[in-house]
């Protein structure tokens, strides 16, 4: 098992290297920070711009290959992911950004998963009954509702609660109140900031899992082996819980692992709307600021997270499905 995971990790490392390198070439040939420098007042001369970029390791006069070698050399020798056109170090900001994103998403990922799968099972067991119709219709509705609108609706709801109570219970934006005392007040403040985005992302996020889990379970509730289990003397619900559920969870486990990276790297709507400046927002900003190194770094992070997701998917599959266990 360990050997198998090691082998998979090796393959993914090569893939990460290739995608990141390709991303770098794409970024370096399409992003031109010098253009933005021209908008500064007083307008700097091209020589001044080039000189300042040269100091940052972003020399626009070098060709793509030379810059790639320099950039890669920096990472391999010093683990230095380069600098932004404004002089900031990518390494310095990166960890903070990742932490912000992780904190923003982690609770809602877990909640979405648990609630989504549970509701999928619940609705599948009551196919076409009232509960199933309500839950599944809700999921489809949420699926077609664009995320920004959904998040705004939750913010409006939180604000109206605040107004109704006459006190500011929830913060609809931001990470924390500046200058808060540590200890209990800081914790309350954290929860007040955390509640709204987590709630919003959770109630609009579980739809996919619910629909998938319901579908896969329904494919299995009438399977021959469930009938066998019932013939042994298990009730219908016991048979479904013990036999159909685990089999139907195999494809869901795979999809879970693959949706995690999408949330971590693609959550810029949530980061922008709730004003949590995380990695998703950063990657969008990098492109608008013509920032080659940040764009590549976020891409690299995305591929690493994706690889972790893929390995998790393999691991989860092996865990629930003995048929794929490697000898």
């Amino acid at each position, binding site marked *: 098992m360990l050997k198998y995971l090691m082998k998979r990790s090796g393959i993914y490392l090569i893939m990460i290297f290739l995608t990141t390198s390709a991303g770098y070439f794409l970024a370096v040939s399409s992003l031109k920070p010098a253009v933005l420098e021209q908008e500064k007042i007083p307008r700097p001369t091209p020589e001044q711009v080039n000189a300042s970029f040269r100091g940052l390791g972003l020399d626009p006069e070098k060709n793509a290959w030379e810059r790639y070698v320099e950039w890669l050399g920096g990472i391999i020798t010093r683990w230095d992911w380069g600098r932004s056109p404004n002089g900031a170090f990518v390494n310095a900001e990166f960890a903070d950004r990742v932490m912000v994103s992780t904190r923003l998403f982690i609770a809602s990922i877990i909640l979405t998963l648990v609630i989504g799968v549970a509701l999928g099972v619940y609705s599948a067991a009551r196919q076409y009954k009232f509960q199933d119709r309500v839950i599944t219709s809700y999921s489809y509705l949420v699926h077609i509702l664009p995320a920004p609108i959904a998040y705004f609706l939750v913010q409006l709801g939180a604000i109206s609660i605040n107004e109704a109570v006459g006190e500011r219970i929830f913060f609809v934006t931001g990470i924390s109140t500046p200058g808060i005392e540590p200890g209990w007040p800081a914790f309350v403040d954290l929860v007040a900031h955390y509640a709204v985005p987590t709630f919003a992302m959770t109630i609009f996020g579980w739809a996919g899992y619910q629909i998938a889990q319901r579908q896969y379970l329904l494919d299995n509730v009438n399977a*021959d*082996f469930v009938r066998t289990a*019932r013939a042994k003397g*298990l009730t219908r619900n016991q048979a479904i819980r013990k*036999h159909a559920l685990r089999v139907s969870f195999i494809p869901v486990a795979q999809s879970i692992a693959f949706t995690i990276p999408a949330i971590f790297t693609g959550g810029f709507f949530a980061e922008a709307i709730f004003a949590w400046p995380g990695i998703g927002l950063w990657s969008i900003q990098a492109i608008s600021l013509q920032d080659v190194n940040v764009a590549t770094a976020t891409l690299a992070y995305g591929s690493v997270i994706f690889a972790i997701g893929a390995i998790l998917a393999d691991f989860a599959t092996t865990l629930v499905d003995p048929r794929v266990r490697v000898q």
Partner: protein
Amino acid sequence: MSTNTTPAERLRDAGLYAPGDAVLSVRDLNVRFNSENGVVHAVRGVDFDLMPGKTLGIVGESGSGKSVTSMAVMGLLPETADISGSVRFKGKELLGLSDKAMCKHRGNDIAMVFQDPLSSLTPVYTVGNQIIEALTVHNPTMSKQAKEARAVDLLRMVGIPSPKDRLKAFPHEFSGGMRQRVMIAIAIANDPRVLIADEPTTALDVTIQAQVLEVLHTAQEETGAAVVMITHDLGVVAGMADDIMVMYAGKPVETGTVEDIYYNPRMPYTLGLLGAVPRVDTATKQSLVPIEGTPPNLALPVTGCSFAARCPLVSDACLHGEPELIAVPGVEGQTLGHRAACIKSNELSNDADAHKIFHAPPKPVSKFDGVARVEREKVLELKDVKKHFPLLKGALIKRRIGTVKAVDGLSFDIREGECVSIVGESGCGKTTTLLEIMEFHPDQVGEVVIGGVSNKVATDHKTTMTMRKEMQMVFQDPTGALDPRFTVYEVLAEPLENLGMPKAAIKKRIMELMKLVGLQPDHVNRFPNQFSGGQRQRIGIARALAVNPKLVVLDEPVSALDVSVQAGVINLLDKLRAELGLSYLMVAHDLSVVRHISDRVAVMYLGKIVETGDVDDVFDNPRHPYTRALLSAIPVPDPNLERTRERIILQGDLPSPLDAPKGCNFATRCPVFAALPAAKQEKCLTLEPPLASEKDGAQDFACFFPDGEIDADMLVVHA
């Protein structure tokens, strides 16, 4: 029983007069399903009593309601099914019990074995886990060790080698036959009083079927359970059942002891079914009895006899009022009694001839029948054809760790107008042989000569096309082999267009073809799903015949069809061979069909032919122990014969071709080898027996000790 009782009265009578000692009494069972086409009345008034230790066979075509009946007894039908009547287990009413209350009986008092062993076990749990679960449900206080010990006992009882280790194995590590054994182990775990087996061997090879039936027999002896055996195969129940209930269109149409039904059928449907089954034990070359038409649509109310539309004896009286199941005069006093639902049952006497009644066509005579075999031209010849698959390992760099010899040096020929069949268990290389013939490529190992053209010269498209015109194929699954979006016209026109035939000629040819295979020419614009299974197979045959081939390759042509439909297709194949002078190469696992249709037979085992010759020689006097075992495994629809017959039960499954033995391939399972003294065994293990005929021998076989004594452990007789 009088004929004019209402269901309510019969139900009341059942409660009063049902035999007190019956373990299972079913009275007036009705099942209705809501479907898009209205209410389908799938089971319409089934009555039976099951006595302890006895076996009841329920026989019928697909859709006759036999499975629904068993599921209703088990309480496993969907909640939407409307079930009425009475199902009593030892006098206690089971219908209407809640799922939870029913669970006390399911698996404990009444257990069930299902048809498809491949999908009936949960893939993600070990076999041990699944057996122990059955024990836990009904014996919550049993200790873990006791349960494990019992599970090992059960596995040993159903004949699984090294049961202790196998407890930890997952279902996918077992073969189909082994999984069915596990299913039986689960079913008998709690010593049920009633064991329902729903087509338990339909998905299995004949040798494995014999093993599993043997296990069922042992299980019944060990537990003393009463068995309900549901099957469409009259052969399977002949030896096992005490009583038979024949179902048609959701209703029992004839019930009685097994002798009553097999030797004295009083309902035309039963008579037809019995005549439709080809026999493996007789050489009589007679056409089979086809039962034309399809069962009625049960969404519509039944006004007359449900079989009337297909019955050759139908008269006006049959169309008014459905006949009751009434006692056949002269036979009284048994538990089930011999009863038939036919107003003409008195007219059908003991010597009723199904062939005459159902107007079975005469056995067709081919123009080649009088010509000696050696004087006929060869249409297909195989010379030392081999197909070895390398077995590779490794993710990026593949290493060869072995060779699978799927086909290992095959030589045979087919002459004009004859049918050669290849038989053997799954995995013996039958299908690979067909694929090798169809491949027809110069790079193949060995030579394939079709209509005088060798694969060694088939270097250009034109030669291959000539060969394709000579040889066509009919596939096993008629539904999968026809494009659902093509009309029959398009299906049949495609091969003709390929040959560049003009449009007008194509149209004419298609009309001819439709008539030839017994379909209505004006149905050419229909889609395949508008036809029944048998009709679809006829379309498949018409497509194969479109280009006027000399040789037709039939890959299990009737195995997907019901017995009654199968008979019609076999008769058609027989007729076409005679009329068109065709040759057939058939692959089939049903040896009765093979015996009926073929002139010659080749028995394959692990990629090699072990015995070949004229079908009557091989079947009447098999020399190779494998052929003997295969033939003895086929159940015969004759209860007396079936009960006294000696059966060779092979141990285990076909070994993986990977670990094929050095000497004789069959030595590992051979019943003769097992009985040999060690000195003689040595020869089998080191030398490979050649395929040759004995002096004056009729057939070729590959065995050093033909007709050898069979090991006593592998011989079974049920007296």
